[in-house]
């Protein structure tokens, strides 16, 4: 019992690996499998042809069948190895297949046809990443439109939020004015009002402002966030007032002080907020679902959701679209994960 508990409490190991270390590593490796496994499986699946996706049980890697060129045929024929019968060991091309029988040709002898049963031949396959699921997205669906909508919302909303919130944070950190405490309380108050509990009136306001079914209806309501104001204010407080006073001596306007001094000096905090904002906006779902009802306004998230809802789920396209939706976030994660971790830890989420 004590051993189990020392496993729970041990901090610094001493030299040799204790068995509790082995258990810890086992847990962590299981963690890699559980956390990355599903995503890897999704990505691999997205490179499989429709036939391969229908296969049960599925195979780990995507495969494609080899083909052979045979004289007298315009298109290459699907290649098989014969495993039974007089042609055993030969590589053949299939010309026709029906009712459990296949008509095949030996490439060196293109004039003679053989009829074999299906279990006499085995397909020759190689690992191949099929890209048609991806190219289909651009041909059959309005993928670029959805991608553009998502990108436009994310970029505009992030910029707007950074500007508006840093202005407020500047006012709340660098000015002494009557009513500052009340404003701070108001900001804290908005923490208690998540969008999820004011959907109906928010819908009315957005509609009245003519932003229903417009990307702006998604961008503007979320532009001011208490989290953003607090995160930036916390940072701006640490900027010494002497710098501002020196600038004022030089007759810099307040706006110039904000734009030329405060913003550049707050860059680390602004970067953290920018990353968070990009994440929130790109992944946003419920509010866009309410405001954007026409297909041409859909974001990627809405498009994904609506395609999987249709009766016959078109998995090949859906898998490819899911991968493309997660790609930008995965890229951000790889390059900036240190900032994301600190950012989220310091704000406590949204």
């Amino acid at each position, binding site marked *: 019992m*004590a051993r189990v*508990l020392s496993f*729970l*409490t041990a*901090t*610094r*190991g001493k030299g040799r690996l204790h068995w509790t*270390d082995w258990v*810890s590593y086992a*847990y*962590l490796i299981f*963690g*890699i499998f559980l*956390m990355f496994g*599903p*995503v890897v499986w*999704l990505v691999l*699946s997205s490179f499989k042809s429709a036939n391969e996706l*229908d296969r049960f049980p*599925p195979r780990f890697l995507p495969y494609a069948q080899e083909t052979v060129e045979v004289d007298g045929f315009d298109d290459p024929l699907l290649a098989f190895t014969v495993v039974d019968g007089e042609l055993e060991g030969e590589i053949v091309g299939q010309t026709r297949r029906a009712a459990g029988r296949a008509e095949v040709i030996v490439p060196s002898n293109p004039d003679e046809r053989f009829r074999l049963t299906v279990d006499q031949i085995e397909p020759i396959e190689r690992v191949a990443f099929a890209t048609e699921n991806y190219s289909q997205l651009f041909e059959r669906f309005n993928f670029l439109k959805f991608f553009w909508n998502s990108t436009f919302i994310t970029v505009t909303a992030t910029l707007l939020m950074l*500007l*508006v919130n840093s*202005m407020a944070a*500047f006012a*709340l950190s660098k*000015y002494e*004015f009557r009513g500052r405490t009340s404003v701070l309380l*108001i900001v804290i108050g908005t*923490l*208690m*009002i998540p969008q*999820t*509990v*004011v*959907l*109906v*009136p928010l*819908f009315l*306001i957005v509609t009245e402002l003519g932003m229903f079914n417009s990307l702006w209806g998604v961008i*503007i309501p979320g*532009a*001011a966030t208490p989290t953003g104001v607090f995160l930036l204010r916390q940072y701006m407080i640490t900027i010494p007032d002497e710098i501002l006073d020196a600038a004022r001596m030089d007759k810099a*306007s*307040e706006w110039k002080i904000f734009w030329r001094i405060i913003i550049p000096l707050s860059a680390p905090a602004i970067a953290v907020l920018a990353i968070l904002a990009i*994440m929130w906006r790109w*992944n946003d*779902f419920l509010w866009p679902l*309410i405001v954007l009802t026409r297909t041409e306004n859909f974001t990627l998230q809405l498009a*994904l959701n609506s395609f*999987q809802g249709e009766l016959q789920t078109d998995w090949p396209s*859906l898998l490819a679209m*899911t991968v493309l*939706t*997660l790609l930008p*976030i995965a890229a951000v*994660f790889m390059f900036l*994960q240190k900032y994301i971790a600190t950012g989220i*830890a310091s704000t*406590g*989420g949204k």
Partner: protein
Amino acid sequence: MLALQRKLGVNRLAWAFLLPNLILFGLFAFLPVILNVFYAMTGGDNVLLADRPDVGARNFVTLLDCENYLDVNSCREDKFWRAVWNTVRFVILQVGFMVGFALLTAIILNRDIRARGFFRSVFFFPVLLSPVVVALIWKWILQREGVLNAFLDWTGAGGINWLVDAQWAFGWSVFISVWAHMGFYTLILLAGLQAIPRDVYEAALMDRANAWRTFRRITLPLLAPTMLVVLILALIKGVQTFDEVYAFTGGGPGTATTFIIQYIYEEGFAGAPRLFGLAAAASLLVAGVLVVLTLIQLRISRNNVDG
């Protein structure tokens, strides 16, 4: 801006900087709260308040009219109560498992292990995925001819149509939600663990306290404030669960995974007629719960700062 500065003076210029934010807060956070009350007191399916008939507290009566609150079939609006009880069950399971596993993971990550940064980001990675992507990833794995059933077939256990069975669909909804959000809480708990001073442990070692005592008498009490914040945060988010489960099961089979926010969405926006009044009344009830939780959270974090 310079002209404005001359007119207002430097200190009152602060209001100019605050203005955009205050307008947005006012228009999209405070005004809705007030309007929500009016919506909750009116009926019909018109979105304009002026065209909505006053019904007093009737929406609340509809929602709360129950002979026995534990038996949803005795309630007038049984769908609401199904959603409420589903949410309660979901939140208890999800928060319990999530905080439990987050604590275990944080404790392991706090040990002297190699590549801690890497492992930390492994557990954190799903937090960044969008709810719809999370739902689709798992739906693909769990579908009738998916990889999990293939594995079960191979072991001889036989496949299950996971998302068609109410119990399994609910269980998997809890699972994907824990999977997607656990890393966030792990991060906060790990920060809490690392803030515990090393010398306390050294003192315990000197006193020959065994591991269990050290864990119970030092780690747990010193981690308690962080644990509380994590619990409350998880509760606040758990009550608002919608996206990933909606994309995952659509609330089904039947109403097995319909939670309270989905109820509000469906009454107000998805169905016809659009019962804005009922949706707003239900929102107010949820908001009440969230306000209490948030106040507790603010109270705790203020105590943490003071102490």
